[in-house]
């Protein structure tokens, strides 16, 4: 039951083999039972009234009644939304994020909110004010981040689907670490309205689920232009067309030999090569491509993202909403400083300081503008690559999930984002899908598509998942 796809769950509901209250109870019971082990959820919607969610418009769709969990970055009307921060520990939004509103309109049933790295800054989910999330495959290890709660919840089947967000890899890396499928669509595909901002030119909402088909179904419902977000692109409506067979004849898949060589873990390298071999067996042609400026991506990102974060997080002043320091102060600047120092965790403060430095007089041209030029070079590299291939297949992470506390200094984690950041800087659609595990832990393969072509990466992943079952595997303790 808990390993069924959205289409299978829909069939059960359609044929009245299960009722909405029964379906919600199954998943809510799992949330209650397993969340103490995982700390993946910050809120469980116990008083859910499934049948009241449905209207005449959404009572019959494929997503009608399908449970999901929202990353706690998405504003939910009347439900506490923390972004994993003390700053918003008691914040209850008076509106829904557009992504949330659209999935509500589709009839999806929100079971709760997922833990995350504070303000989406982190790659291990160890930077949440509400404590770290544990990886369902090994509770002593991290689930990745920043969407670690969403990933752990899907991997443990506390929900079939979760929303997530990706700035430099925050969907793909935790999806890889938890053995699930996660997609970040092209920048501009999904509205950012009501999604608490980290770095506005990089943040994008996406989906985590068991399979690419499930991701496609939910992505279709949440994407599209929104008048409330001027960076959401007006384009022809996109609808997910699931492939009918696993054949990949004629598909040109770009691979980057240098990136595979950078995999110093032999087991991860072997898993990656084995997955590429499967694509070839399905009929795809592998073509070597190069992204010569991608080696500068991590450095450019750690200028740009903190710069945008330092500006975005300036809004948290303790006056209009969010945490305010308890000390009564007669000086407003003193109040700002105390409020922000109490409300933000160490990693967020570090990135605010870094961003403030990058934007300050004397460094702006040398670092911030230079990083934006590097971004263009990387984007041009991708354009060149996609003139030769249809889709690219590259690693997600050079490592398997590491143990809690193993990387005590956040700076050590930054370099591990080397394979996810380039496509983020270029705004391209990309996903992670599970491949052969290494060291008994999940591993992901990243598929990157040309701008606005989510169909090609989802189709390729769905075809791969027709001939493999890595995405169906579950951690034993949660079966």
């Amino acid at each position, binding site marked *: 039951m808990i390993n069924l796809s959205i289409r299978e769950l829909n069939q059960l509901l359609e044929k009245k083999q299960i009722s909405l209250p029964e379906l919600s109870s199954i998943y809510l019971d799992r949330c209650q039972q397993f969340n103490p082990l995982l700390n993946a959820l910050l809120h469980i919607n116990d008083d859910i009234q499934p049948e009241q969610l449905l209207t005449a418009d959404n009572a019959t769709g494929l997503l009608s009644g399908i449970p999901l969990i929202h990353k706690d970055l998405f504003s939910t009307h009347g439900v506490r939304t923390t972004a994993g921060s003390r700053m918003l520990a008691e914040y209850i939004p008076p509106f829904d994020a557009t992504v949330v509103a659209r999935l509500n309109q589709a009839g999806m049933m929100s079971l709760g909110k997922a833990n995350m790295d504070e303000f989406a800054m982190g790659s291990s989910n160890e930077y949440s004010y509400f404590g770290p999330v544990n990886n369902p495959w090994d509770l002593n290890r991290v689930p990745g981040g920043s969407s670690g709660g969403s990933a752990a919840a899907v991997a443990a089947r506390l929900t079939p689907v979760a929303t997530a967000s990706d700035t430099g890899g925050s969907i793909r890396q935790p999806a890889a670490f938890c053995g699930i499928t996660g997609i970040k669509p092209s920048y501009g595909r999904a509205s950012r309205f009501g999604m608490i901002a980290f770095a506005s*030119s990089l943040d994008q909402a996406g989906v985590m689920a068991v399979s690419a088909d499930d991701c496609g179904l939910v992505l279709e419902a949440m994407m599209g232009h929104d008048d409330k977000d001027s960076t959401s*692109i007006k384009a022809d409506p996109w609808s997910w067309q699931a492939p009918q067979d696993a054949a990949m004849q004629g598909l040109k898949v770009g691979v980057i030999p240098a990136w595979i060589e950078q995999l110093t873990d032999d087991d991860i390298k072997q898993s990656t090569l084995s997955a590429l071999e499967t694509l070839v067996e399905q009929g795809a042609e592998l073509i070597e491509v190069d992204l010569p400026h991608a080696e500068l991506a991590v450095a450019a990102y750690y200028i740009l993202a903190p710069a945008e974060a330092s500006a975005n997080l300036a809004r948290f002043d303790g006056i*209009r909403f969010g945490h305010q320091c308890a000390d009564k102060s007669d000086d407003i600047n003193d109040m700002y400083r105390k409020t*922000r120092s109490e409300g933000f965790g160490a990693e967020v403060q570090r990135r605010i*300081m870094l961003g403030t430095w990058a934007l300050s007089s004397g460094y702006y041209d*040398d670092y911030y503008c*230079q990083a934006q*030029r590097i971004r263009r070079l990387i984007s041009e590299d991708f354009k060149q690559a996609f003139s030769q291939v249809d889709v690219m297949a590259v690693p997600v992470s050079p490592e398997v999930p590491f143990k809690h506390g193993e990387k005590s200094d956040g700076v050590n984690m930054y370099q591990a984002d080397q394979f996810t950041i380039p496509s983020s*800087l270029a705004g391209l659609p990309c996903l992670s899908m599970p491949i052969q595990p290494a060291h008994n832990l999940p591993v992901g393969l990243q598929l990157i598509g040309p701008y606005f072509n989510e169909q090609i990466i989802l189709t390729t992943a769905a075809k791969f998942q027709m001939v493999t079952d890595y995405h169906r595997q579950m951690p034993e303790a949660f079966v």
Partner: protein
Amino acid sequence: MSINRKELTEMAELAKLDLNAEQTRQVGQSLNQITAMVERIKKADTAQVKPMFHPCQFWMPLRDDVVAEPSRKTELLALARHADDNFYLVPKVIE
């Protein structure tokens, strides 16, 4: 490139963060590690390259200058710790 203590203090003031001596030392250490990592971007030849501030081309859409949403003043003021008579209350800012 190394960020000194004076610069750190100035940045903390700009960012409105209250860092004690130990926090300042730790942040300084991290920032110097990070700046050492990002230093390499300066060596790339970008003389003919325009900065790319955004991943996609878009034009700022304009809408008619009419009220699009009802006032949510009461709901929004209710989120503040201190509000009164339709105003946010803050410490005195004018001498």
